């Protein structure tokens, strides 16, 4: 028996499975190909078994999970392609290039479907940015890397989120999401179909960089990670821009049967995946693959993860047509093989057969699938205990409130998003810093709204409920802009699936997402799993990032979160409860990360979301903003920032004052309306039985909150805004 299987991450049982597939011992190339393809990153062997919990179909779903990206119908023969993907491990060792190549990879997934990429978002998590210079270096590098790639290729980065928590000290998370637009009849898939059709290679030459990135992503980070360095590469957004334009132009010619990006596991995965989705077989010659370095071995060529490469399946006889367009863009297209129907993936080195295996056996359909053991961790029950006496009520609410507003998690992230070109393509109607980004769809009245969301503290304290909340919170963000939520893509970032308590978190999260998606009718159309985000046995908080898209039928009726005019009425929708558990207030001001996560009623949530959409549609609302981290007080402040307007708020409550201000009870919104619209709005609220409370008015320049007739927060909006805007910049100095 070939004992080197362990070196490529294959277990003894898996090796036996390979022997069954081949009826013989694999050679080194074959073994390495199984090694990368059967890694978690490519095969989802630990997670796939749970995906049945996700709703993945629906009237609007044109492409569900399993392709390069998911596609959802937005009407008028148009559809949105989207996907989120992690690049956590590379970003931890080389933040600029790690993040940049993450962006590059996800863009290729979108245009591989034939869609024109129109927007990028990202979701970032870092450790303690206030204490650690290393964390600052990572933040700086990751943000610059995302900017460097997205800005250069000319796709606006329109939204995202950045959060800090000690659990990410050793493992930052960098997830990038790309959204594209496509006409229904232009959808392409990564199919190698039509026997005799040509397999063409376009883009950058293959080098030794990025060897084994997929398996790199599937192990815990250790000191030895240094050894794996070559898995990080340098991104070339210029090359990708040419590649993207060339591919989109090629698709117009009708000569392209399918296309596939060369991402994790490079040529190996591109070949076996397209073959499996198509006719079943493929034959390629590694000597025809353009190489950057001399003397590269077949295994190096097949496993290289060099960036900015695509595989095209081209109708036989039309290769020169393809070459001509590709060369116009300054690139080369080379035929490296043909589609077959014998079910084999055959890799040749000139005349020599270097590998010969059933194509599907490499692909996730043939890879092993595990149902890991799971076990509820002890902390789960323990951390639910929280006594109100543990939380000392603040003396000075002005001070407490400002501490919260200027904390790394709640302060303005303009330092980050002003490094991203968020306006290129002149379609960004609502810019970063809002609940959701809104883009117009040129040539129609429509708009789309995009967001990415996850509160990982909730997900740690209660993975199932926390993950459900991530979904509904994303939907709330969209609804506040006037968009009907349509579908999600999920970036699931977790610790090691081989540890039962971590796998329990994963399982709970998947169930929680599935449940919320079913309730809101927002199917999961694509996603990514990143396991092994742990260092020296400290795992990250479970972080299932939810990227969501919604459609606005009439872009002129979209809504934003900022208060518009002094004199407008400010109304709270929903109910504030005694729910400080897991709140930002508890964490930041009291150093406690515990308690029960706020409860969630899908019934109330859906009722409120439907109401907001109707009210926006009827033009009754001047602003709408969902209440999340920091509670009601922070939501009110956020509404004041854009225009520098103030509010005069009176709250009558039986709750303790800090609870009234900072509780993160779910299903709540702050909206404002003109005095003229109030009567109609109140009728509508009564009709739809919407719990509501008129809080006060939008005013000129003071931010005032009184609770039970005593003023507890009195600030100048000007000062509040300056501190909130400046906090992050100050932190990064």
């Amino acid at each position: 028996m070939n004992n080197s299987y362990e070196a490529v991450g294959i277990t003894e049982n898996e090796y036996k499975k390979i022997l069954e597939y081949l009826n013989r011992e694999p050679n080194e190339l074959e073994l390495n190909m199984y090694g990368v393809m059967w890694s978690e990153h490519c095969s989802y062997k630990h997670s796939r078994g749970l995906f049945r919990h996700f709703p993945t179909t629906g009237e609007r779903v044109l492409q569900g999970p399993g392709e390069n990206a998911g596609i959802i119908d937005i009407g008028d023969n148009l559809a949105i392609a989207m996907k989120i993907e992690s690049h956590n491990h590379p970003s931890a060792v080389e933040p600029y290039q790690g993040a940049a190549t993450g962006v590059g990879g996800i863009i290729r997934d979108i245009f591989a479907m034939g869609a024109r990429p129109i927007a990028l978002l990202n979701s970032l998590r870092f450790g303690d940015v206030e204490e650690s210079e290393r964390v600052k270096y990572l933040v700086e590098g990751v943000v610059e890397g995302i900017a460097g790639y997205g800005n250069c290729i000319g796709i606006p980065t329109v939204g995202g989120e950045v959060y800090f928590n000690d659990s990410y000290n050793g493992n930052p998370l960098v997830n990038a999401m790309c959204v594209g637009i496509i006409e229904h009849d232009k959808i392409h898939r990564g199919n190698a179909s039509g026997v005799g059709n040509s397999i063409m290679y376009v883009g950058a030459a293959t080098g030794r960089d990025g060897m084994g990135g997929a398996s790199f992503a599937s192990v815990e980070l250790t000191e030895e990670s240094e050894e794996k360095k070559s898995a990080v590469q340098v991104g070339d957004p210029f090359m990708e821009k040419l590649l993207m334009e060339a591919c989109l132009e090629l698709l117009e010619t009708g000569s392209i049967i399918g296309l596939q990006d060369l991402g994790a596991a490079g040529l190996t995965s591109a070949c076996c995946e397209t073959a499996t989705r198509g006719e079943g077989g493929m034959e390629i010659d590694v000597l025809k693959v353009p190489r950057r370095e001399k003397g590269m071995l077949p295994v190096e060529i097949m496993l290289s993860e060099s960036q900015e490469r695509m595989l095209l399946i081209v109708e036989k006889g039309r290769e020169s047509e393809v070459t001509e367009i590709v060369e116009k863009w300054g690139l080369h297209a080379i035929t490296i093989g043909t589609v077959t129907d014998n079910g084999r993936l055959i890799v040749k080195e000139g005349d020599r057969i270097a590998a010969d295996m059933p194509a599907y056996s490499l692909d996730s359909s043939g890879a092993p699938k595990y149902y890991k053991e799971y076990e509820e961790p002890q902390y789960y029950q323990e951390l639910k205990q929280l006594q109100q006496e543990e939380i000392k009520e603040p003396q000075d609410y002005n001070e407490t409130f400002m501490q919260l507003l200027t904390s790394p998690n709640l302060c303005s992230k303009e330092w980050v998003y002003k490094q991203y070109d968020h306006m290129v393509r002149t379609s960004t109607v609502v810019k970063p810093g809002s609940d959701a980004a809104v883009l117009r769809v040129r040539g129609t009245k429509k708009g789309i709204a995009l967001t990415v969301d996850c509160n990982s503290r909730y997900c740690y304290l209660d993975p199932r409920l926390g993950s459900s909340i991530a979904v509904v919170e994303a939907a709330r963000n969209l609804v506040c802009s006037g968009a009907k939520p349509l579908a999600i893509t999920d970036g699931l970032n977790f610790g090691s699936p081989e540890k039962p308590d971590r796998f329990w978190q994963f399982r709970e999260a998947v169930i929680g997402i599935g449940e919320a998606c079913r309730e809101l009718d927002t199917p999961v159309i694509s996603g990514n799993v990143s396991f092994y985000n742990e260092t020296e046995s400290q795992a990250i908080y479970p972080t299932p990032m939810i990227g969501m898209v919604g459609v606005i039928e009439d872009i002129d009726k979209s809504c934003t979160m900022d208060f518009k005019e002094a004199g407008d009425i400010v109304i709270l929708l929903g109910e504030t409860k005694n729910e400080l558990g897991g709140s930002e207030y508890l964490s930041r001001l009291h150093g406690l990360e515990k308690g029960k996560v706020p409860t969630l009623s899908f019934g109330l949530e859906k009722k409120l979301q439907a109401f907001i959409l109707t009210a926006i549609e009827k033009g009754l609302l001047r602003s709408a903003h969902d209440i999340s981290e920091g509670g009601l007080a922070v939501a009110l402040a956020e509404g004041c920032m854009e225009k520098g307007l103030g509010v005069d708020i009176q709250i009558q409550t039986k709750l303790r004052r800090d609870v009234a201000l900072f509780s993160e009870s779910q299903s709540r919104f702050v909206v404002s309306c003109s005095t003229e619209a109030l009567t109609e709005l109140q009728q509508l609220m009564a009709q739809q039985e919407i719990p509501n409370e008129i809080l006060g008015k939008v005013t000129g320049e003071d931010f005032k909150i009184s609770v039970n007739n005593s003023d507890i927060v009195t600030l100048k909006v000007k000062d509040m805004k300056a501190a909130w805007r400046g906090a992050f910049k100050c932190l990064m100095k």
Partner: protein
Amino acid sequence: MKAKVYVTLKKSIADPQGTAIQNALGKLGYSNVEEVRIGKLIELDLGDVSEGEAEAQLVKMCEGLLANTVIEEYKYEII
């Protein structure tokens, strides 16, 4: 003591900038150019230190800040 530090991408790492420049040179007629690699030149004045100290400092500077050895390599000259 003065020093020059050269930071370049490792040979195994693609250098997109170099490749683009090589193509541009090709278009200008320099088709004989087989490879272009672009790096950084960093000039330092280390003040009054011995050559041994300077060398020890340079290695630390390169490893710690000037180069990311994940993708880059460095060399230095003490003048």
